[in-house]
């Protein structure tokens, strides 16, 4: 990767993993550890790397950290432009599940960040992705809003059984939501752990979640 100043910098090294179909995996690590870069490499948006990415799936759903909606198109148009094949009966339940039913005709500038994020999530699901990439989709939302969106998102993921990769720096969030956690750390970032969380999401108590979080924390090389 080349920085703005033009120096070459190694961000990621020795990363190797495979995702099982339908599995929800979190990619955890401190900020600046190259999680977003890894996501972009997987999505084919960043070509400046050595290695191999094989995606048997074709359609990709991407929820960026900022919603990245087209400001000059309405919420519904934003979704339809990305998913031209989606029918009204596909979109109706999706908009309703995300609480966007009232906002289909609104422009992104008229939405709060929470609603704009939901619109971005709706867009990613509308393409019926084979692989869903989520880049910190709950960051800078308040606790209640984040929880609400997490629940809606997980419900959608479970219903569509889509293979998902969630990038987050929030360890508790990962412990609560996913089935597998890959921890990145160091400079350049390497995989320091790959944990499976077998207990079904619905049965995870607060103590269980915090014990998992402690396990994830203990794998870190550096504490920052």
């Amino acid at each position, binding site marked *: 990767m080349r920085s703005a100043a033009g120096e070459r910098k190694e961000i990621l090294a020795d990363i190797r993993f495979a995702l099982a179909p339908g599995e929800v995996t979190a990619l955890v690590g401190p900020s600046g550890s190259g999680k977003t870069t890894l996501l*972009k490499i997987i*999505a*084919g*948006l960043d070509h400046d790397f050595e290695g191999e990415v094989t995606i048997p799936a074709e359609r*990709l759903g*991407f929820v*960026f950290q*900022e919603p*990245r909606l*087209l*400001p*000059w*198109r309405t919420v519904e148009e934003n979704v339809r*432009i*990305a998913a031209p094949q989606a029918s009204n009966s596909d979109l109706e339940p999706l908009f309703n599940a995300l609480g966007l039913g009232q906002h289909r005709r*609104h*422009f992104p*500038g*008229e*939405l709060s960040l929470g609603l704009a994020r939901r619109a971005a999530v709706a*867009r990613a699901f509308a*393409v019926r992705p084979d692989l869903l*990439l989520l880049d910190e989709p709950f960051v800078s939302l308040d606790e209640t809003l984040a929880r609400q969106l997490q629940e809606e998102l997980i419900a959608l993921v479970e219903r569509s059984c889509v293979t998902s990769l969630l990038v987050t720096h929030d360890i508790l969030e990962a412990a609560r939501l996913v089935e597998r956690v890959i921890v990145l750390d160091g400079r350049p970032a390497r995989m320091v752990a790959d944990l499976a969380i077998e207990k079904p999401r619905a049965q995870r108590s607060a103590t269980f979640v915090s014990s998992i979080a402690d396990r994830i924390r203990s794998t870190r090389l550096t504490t920052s």
Partner: protein
Amino acid sequence: MIWRIASLAGFLLAWQLGSSLAGAAILPSPAAVLMALLEEARSGALALNLLATLARVAAAFTVAILFGSAIGYAMGRSATFDRVADPWLILLLNLPALVIILLAYVWFGLTEAAAVGAVAINKLPNTIATLREGARALDPALDEMGQAFTFDPLTRARHIVVPQLAPYLAAATRTGLSLVWKIVLVVELIGRPNGVGFAIGTAFQLFDVARILAYGLCFVAVMLAIETCLVQPLERHASRWRTRKA
């Protein structure tokens, strides 16, 4: 609105006053200009010349905007192309309009194509420079979004690129229309047998100041109508997402 009407009335009054001070031969009164205008309208010359000029404006403007946008976009997106083409652009920006017009007539004859081409080339560098700024300001984040969702080139152009370039296109259109019609008149004055420029040239040879003013004002009115009936509504449509606020 009241101030606008008052201002316009003041202008007519000053005109009338100037006319009586300077003499009707040098500055004809508003009424004399109106008579000249009606006379031209009755003979059919006004419509013929206006249409000829408008057709040239439309043709030159379209050519300049199409080519200018394409070249400007390419220069804004590719640093190499920008470096190669920039000296040409500076040359073209600073070449006097008259030189381009005369050279076009010398090289290609007193033809319609030479006239329209010369006007288009005069407008071209300005469009290129404006659209280059627009292309440089394109948001890479939205570009990436389009790539991630595998937008085809047409979708990308229509929904990602053109809306971002709209303000720059509007600016190029604005300055373009006023620039183009002024240069079209010069082109017509020098080497065309019809059009507003030609009519004004003939009137000048006869020292018919009333006719010069009649054509001049008439043309301003036409351009004003295009601005309010075409350019402004289009701009409002393109920026509708900006104006509404929750």
